[in-house]
């Protein structure tokens, strides 16, 4: 598998707090990579550097580099708007806009200048189909997104992210606010999507990482402790701390 994201000696500071320490990782394309670790270990922070959502937090400072497909994303080579178009994100809490289902999915394409009704209709349909929501909502696209269940809302947010045609999809604990059945649906969806997209997910749930991902990265106190194929990491970890964590001795 080809590497799509290259993280090279990345250090990140929130003011005086050293949140990520010398993180180096290569993330392969068209696979699911899971970040696991206890709260505050830096896994979400790292995820948010990949689409530069940390830029908005005052006092954040970054050293080192992240290249996606060979382009340094913290350089002038790429605008942050373009980066976020190519690197979509799904958040912990489903966060649809207080608009119709249609307008939620069309929000992104409209930002980037698509106005033709026909084109938007097509994007909305394909995105909702990719997020396996189309059959449930196709007859009431004009209804408010707030009428959907939590799981449906989260799939709507995935459809919304897919609508701007990204290469990478970041999932920041995207199932932690959902019930087990909705969670399962999102996990199945992630499995389908990895044929076309590179998925990086942060999860609190080790079983989820074990079920869904191809690679797993274990973080502790801002450092990468272990990074390997998911099967190997969970069955035969090399680091004692990884073993302690996955066997539930802390975290």
């Amino acid at each position, binding site marked *: 598998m080809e590497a799509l994201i290259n993280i090279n000696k990345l250090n990140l500071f929130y003011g005086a707090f050293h949140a990520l320490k010398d993180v180096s990782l290569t993330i392969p394309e068209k696979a699911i990579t899971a970040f696991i670790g206890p709260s505050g270990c830096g896994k979400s922070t790292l995820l948010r550097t990949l*689409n530069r*959502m940390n830029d*908005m937090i*005052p006092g954040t400072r970054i050293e080192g580099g992240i290249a996606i497909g060979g382009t340094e994303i913290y350089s002038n080579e790429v605008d*942050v*708007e*373009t*980066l*976020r*178009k190519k690197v*979509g*994100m799904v*958040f912990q*809490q489903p*966060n*649809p*806009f*207080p*608009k119709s289902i249609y307008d939620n999915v069309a*929000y*992104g394409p*409209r*930002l*980037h200048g698509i106005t033709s009704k026909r084109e938007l209709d097509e994007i909305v349909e394909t995105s909702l189909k990719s997020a396996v929501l189309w059959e449930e909502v196709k007859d009431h696209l004009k209804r408010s997104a707030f009428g959907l269940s939590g799981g449906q809302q989260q799939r709507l*947010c995935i459809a*919304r*992210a897919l609508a*701007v045609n990204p290469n990478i999809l970041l999932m920041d604990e995207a199932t932690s606010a959902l019930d087990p059945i909705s969670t399962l649906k999102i996990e199945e969806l992630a499995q389908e999507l990895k044929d076309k997209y590179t998925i990086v997910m942060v999860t609190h749930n080790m079983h989820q990482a074990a079920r869904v991902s191809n690679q797993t990265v274990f973080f502790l106190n801002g450092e990468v402790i272990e990074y390997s194929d998911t099967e190997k990491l969970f069955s035969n970890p090399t680091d004692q701390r990884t073993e302690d964590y996955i066997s539930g001795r802390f975290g």
Partner: protein
Amino acid sequence: MNIFQDANRKQIANRRKTDWYLHILFVIATSIGVLALCALIVDILVDGIARLQPDLFTNFPSRKADGSGMKSALVGTIYMLLIMAPISFIFGVGAAIYLEEYAKKGRITRIIQLNISTLAGVPSIVYGILGLTLFVRLLSLDRSLIAGALTMTLLVLPIIIVSAQEAIRAVPKSRRDASFALGATKWQTVYRSVMPSALPGVLTGVILAMSRAIGETAPLVMIGALTYVAFLPDGLKDSFTVIPIQVYNWLSKPQLEFKELAASGIIVLLALLLLMNFSAILLRNKYQKNV
């Protein structure tokens, strides 16, 4: 075994008594406000209802109470609202968007914020002095409709900024995140995501500020809105009067008939106020349903 036997019934009776006395005190406190409003309304209705006739709206004020009306004052108030509303909306909401979405949260922003909150509490006559110096004299707008409207705009701006900021701040951060994560710029996020959610709250604030402005007399007296105007303003630079000034004018006359006219003027003003506050409440309810 009686598990209730160690209860100190006397102490509980005392606690309940205190509770009851305070209950009564609070009811009285509430009633005073309500009774005062009722007394005001009844008093004014008794005095003014007889004069509340078409003449009041169609006639200009005259030296004789009979057939005297407040057409120029009513039109003056409405014109002033029409000028103030768009100007104060643009500047007030613009400032609120800047402070909430664009400005870096630092010392300077905090100082600006403190200034605006202070300005919201400055007595209105001070704005009158400012308007007199700035608009009437410096920009030589004279004692005109536009000078009055601009002075009132200054008066309501801080109120609008503060309430618009609150409405904007109430929009959950997750909606901004969702927009930014799709590649939106700041303005796109403000325009497409934040403002649609904040707008009902913002408009409520604007309407309440407007309803404060139509009752204000002092600043307009200061810049010299005329008390006796027997014509409709013909342009922005024409002289004008407004309802509270007309009421003030009528009250200062010795004849009883003019006192009655003043009462009917107050009824019209109160009706206008109620109408505006009611529409603000309607907007707020719509807002609550939407969140």
